[in-house]
């Protein structure tokens, strides 16, 4: 069973390599798997632009995401709990939120650069925008999905509003908050790479790296960079899932 999972990718790579070797696929458009591996090695030890090594690109990207994502989570979770808890607050904030939400995060890039200049702040702001909505919406629906009888049960145990908030609404919404966090980081990571196409001043970042590789006509490095971006996205999701299943043992 396990072997079958790897069979199709393996065959595809072999065919791809074969077609590249006999020059059916032109290498300047789609480099062969071997060339991509060599491109990856160049990213690691030579760097694009030279001296700007892969691990530094990664660190800059992760830093930007961490910053924007942390701010998004820290604002969206409490706000979502409040909005789920109080119909009044929900009615007040929802229309404004629904108005702003359909604007794609990337459409904010020009104004973000105007507000924050080119640099980490504007990139983090774009991540923030991408991650904020799913975390907020899932936190709200998490609170709304809590059986009202649990709130009454807490009241019969003499819970004050503070207890209900911290001991019923928050833990009850956690599974849904995790869903939002996972969607949020996914969108945030996607948004980041695009944000780095334009708004980078330090000369580091995975998005910046693959755009630079295009400028110097290195499709092997572009593809190696894309793979790195994908793998990191996957690892982040796996990590969050692991935290999730450790936190929510009760489901």
């Amino acid at each position, binding site marked *: 069973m396990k072997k079958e999972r790897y069979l199709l990718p393996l065959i595809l790579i072999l065919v791809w390599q074969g077609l590249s070797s006999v020059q059916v696929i032109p290498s300047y458009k789609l480099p062969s798997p071997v060339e991509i591996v060599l491109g990856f090695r160049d990213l690691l030890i030579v760097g694009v632009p030279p001296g700007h090594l892969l691990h530094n690109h990664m660190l800059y990207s992760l830093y930007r995401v961490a910053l924007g994502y942390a701010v998004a989570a820290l604002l969206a979770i409490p706000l979502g709990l409040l909005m789920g808890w109080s119909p009044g607050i929900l009615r007040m904030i929802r229309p404004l939120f629904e108005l702003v939400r359909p604007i794609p995060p990337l459409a904010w890039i020009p104004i973000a650069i105007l507000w924050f200049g080119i640099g980490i702040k504007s990139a983090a702001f774009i991540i923030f925008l991408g991650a904020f909505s799913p975390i907020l919406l899932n936190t709200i629906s998490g609170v709304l999905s809590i*059986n009202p*009888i*649990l709130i*009454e*049960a*807490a*009241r*019969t*145990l*003499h*819970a*004050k509003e503070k*207890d209900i908030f911290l*001991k*019923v609404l928050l*833990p*009850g919404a*956690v599974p849904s908050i995790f869903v939002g966090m996972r969607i949020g980081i996914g969108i945030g990571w996607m948004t980041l790479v695009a944000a780095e196409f334009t708004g980078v001043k330090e000369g580091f970042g995975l998005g910046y790296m693959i755009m630079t590789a295009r400028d110097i006509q290195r499709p092997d490095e572009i593809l190696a960079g894309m793979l790195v971006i994908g793998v990191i996205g996957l690892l982040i999701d796996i990590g969050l899932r692991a935290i999730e299943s450790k936190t*929510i*043992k*009760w*489901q």
Partner: protein
Amino acid sequence: MGLDLLELSKTFPGNGLGESVHVLENIQHRIENGRFVSIIGPSGCGKTTLLRIIAGLEKASAGKVLLDGKELVQGTEEVGLVFQEYALFPWRTTLQNIEMGLEIRGMDKPKRRLTAMEYIKTFDLNGFEHRYPRELSGGMKQRVAIARTLIMNPRVVLMDEPFGSLDSQTRNAMQEFLLRIWLKRGDTIIFVTHNVEEAVFLSDEIVILSKRPARLIQSIDMDLPRPRDRTSETCNKIRRGILKILEEEMKREEVGDEDRWDRL
């Protein structure tokens, strides 16, 4: 000394679409302290609403509830409620569920853990203290729910059809278990049920309510010694009497089709 229900009435106001619903009408009754009192009546008649008013989850439209002559204020620690659907916190283990009230009260962790462990023992939940509700059987869940309420030492324990969703063997075992606990503690229990046999087996007193709007039809004192035999002639006789009262009540001019009388 006891719990006085004074001219309790409840009407749920209509919300534009629906009409207002008159649920309780002028319920007047005294429940002596330490008694096991069952409330029985057609389904949808307002038994649960009555319990919710006593528990402070709902406000009466008129009338009040006194305990030993003093009006019960909302959020009082004198009254505890056991819900029909257990209402356990699914993210809390058995131990954490039982501890919840003490935690809210602000008792420090070692102390409340010690107290909760005593309840784990009494309620025969040993070995399940770190399990989550989804891993427990129905009977166990209800024991956790009862322990969670009793650990707060309420003077009046309200129970809303607590054994309604259990199979009959588990139900019988739980009834006997509840009696043992109650005989040791001596709290007042107000026990809402559909099940006449259950009421006869458990109670010192059975209060019969009418169809909606619920009025008090009759209150029956049960002077039978315990332990009782569910199938004894006396029990059956009382049961027949109650069933007859309820049947006549159902035949009385229909108030609404939605009033169904089942699960006798």
